[in-house]
């Protein structure tokens, strides 16, 4: 198993598309920061004109923390889309190039092979989020400096600079669990459909569907508590004044359970499928 993981990591390290993915993350951040630099101040001023007459805000509201939060919000759609494309490619490229045939004419266990793919997919997701977080903090603080964070969640919530920083950190960490679910799902879609384009289309469709379901208010029903899309927005809970740690931990644990189930299902299907 360790040898298979090492081989997968080596392939990932040597493939140009890994670096394109990390480059795309940086580019996405640069575009956000660039837009904020030219338009952000004006927008914030319009939004806050009334509040600024009644309250004192320390520093500029268009600051590094706000930008780190805006970049964090790519977790809704842009980042999972990018991750799903990259991660599904771990397998679809092997189908396309026929290297799976070369692998399985060797004494290699199918279950262990695909498990190592899932492991590397999750590891890559963690690295990508860590990279996003690191560059988001680095670039945003360098360009815009620090300051209080303003977030609109049902109402406007304000967090002081230091408080905001660690809330953002925990939100990225919680978002990693959500992203791992999407990555594992995309690899499972790849196992089912094998073809690169079909997998991309279905992964994107899955993401769109998830975003649509996110807007549906299931209230306090079981759906609202157990649906993966609702569990996957736990990272947002760090931007309420009182953090409900118990709920966040429970949600992420259930989501990790879903991830394991999707992974198990993928392994089972891959194990019993012919290598065409």
């Amino acid at each position, binding site marked *: 198993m360790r040898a298979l993981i090492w081989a997968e990591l080596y392939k990932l390290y040597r493939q140009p598309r890994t670096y394109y993915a990390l480059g795309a993350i940086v580019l996405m951040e640069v575009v956000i920061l660039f837009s904020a630099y030219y338009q952000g101040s004006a927008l914030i001023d319009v939004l806050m004109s009334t509040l600024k007459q009644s309250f004192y805000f320390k520093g500029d509201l268009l600051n590094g923390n706000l930008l780190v939060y805006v970049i964090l919000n790519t977790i809704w759609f842009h980042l999972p889309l990018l991750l799903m494309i990259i991660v599904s490619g771990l397998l679809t490229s092997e189908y396309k190039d*026929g290297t799976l045939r*070369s692998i399985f*004419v*060797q004494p290699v266990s199918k279950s262990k092979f695909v498990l190592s793919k899932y492991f590397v997919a999750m590891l890559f997701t963690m690295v990508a989020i860590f990279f996003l977080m690191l560059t988001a903090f680095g670039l945003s603080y360098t360009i815009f400096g620090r300051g209080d964070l303003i977030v609109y969640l049902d109402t406007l919530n304000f967090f002081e600079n230091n408080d905001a920083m660690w809330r953002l950190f925990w939100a990225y960490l919680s978002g990693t669990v959500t992203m791992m679910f999407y990555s594992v799902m995309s690899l499972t879609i790849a196992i089912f459909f094998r073809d690169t384009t079909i997998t991309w289309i279905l992964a994107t469709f899955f993401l769109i569907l998830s975003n649509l379901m996110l807007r549906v208010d299931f209230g306090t029903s079981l759906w609202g508590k157990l649906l993966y899309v609702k569990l996957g927005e736990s990272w947002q809970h760090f931007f309420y004044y009182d953090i409900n740690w118990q709920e966040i931990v429970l949600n992420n644990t259930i989501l990790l359970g879903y991830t394991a189930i999707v992974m198990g299902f993928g392994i089972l299907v891959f194990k019993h499928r*012919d290598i065409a």
Partner: protein
Amino acid sequence: MIVSGEGLTKSYGGNIVVNHVTIRCGPGTITGLLGTNGAGKSTLFKMLLGLVKPDQGRVIIESTRKKPLSGIIEKPCLYGYLNAAENLKIFASIQKTPYSRENINHLLKKVGLPTDRKDPVKNFSMGMKQRLGIAIALINDPEALVLDEPFSGLDPIGVNSLRTLILQMAREEKMAVLIASHNVEELSKFCDFLYVIKDGEIVRSDTAKTLITQYTDQYLLVGENLNFSGPLERFNPVLIGNGAEIRCNPNEITKVLNQLVANGGTIISCVPKINMNRLFQYSQL
């Protein structure tokens, strides 16, 4: 027998691709599987290699080695962004067989690849990729090698050197080699035993020599001053360039050649042409 398939059957969507096929290959033997495109050669080989599960029948492997058999299906599938040594390293590591630089160089030399090329294998010619594919297959010393269309896309020099390599593995290392091809001329040159597959069924199987003898009814002769006058006229010679194509049975060819030499001709080459229509006709085995 090192590898044998007994009554192998596979169908896709109700369409039978391989139908009750039995095939065997022993140590030091080169066994050919001859069939047109879509005859079921690749599916049969995929079943032998364990890539595809047969609907019926079984694959028997008589070997105690870690890797009893290996091979290449359709084309050598490699990691194009890695170089030859890195490809070997990856395929060795996933088998838990760490290969040192010396082991890798030894394998590369064995298949006739340079050890100093560091560029990605996507730049390699098809012949070089075939050789690297064989080197990967040879990791862990399998007892049998299954090669599907190994000569496709190769130039004559590439074909010749690959044929030499396969012969060397079978004769010197006593490997069982199974080769599928649609090229009867190529297979007949070096196979010990031949199976002919048509529409998923084995229609003939015998020693290569027997099949060539039974189904050759034409020869392409190349030489100088080839004089087909007199009794040789009955072989209907058709002159082509420096040679001629004649219709004759294998038991008559020696006589024809002797006569041509007696008539003052020089024979440079004599290539038998197998009657494909007859060879691929259904028959009772």
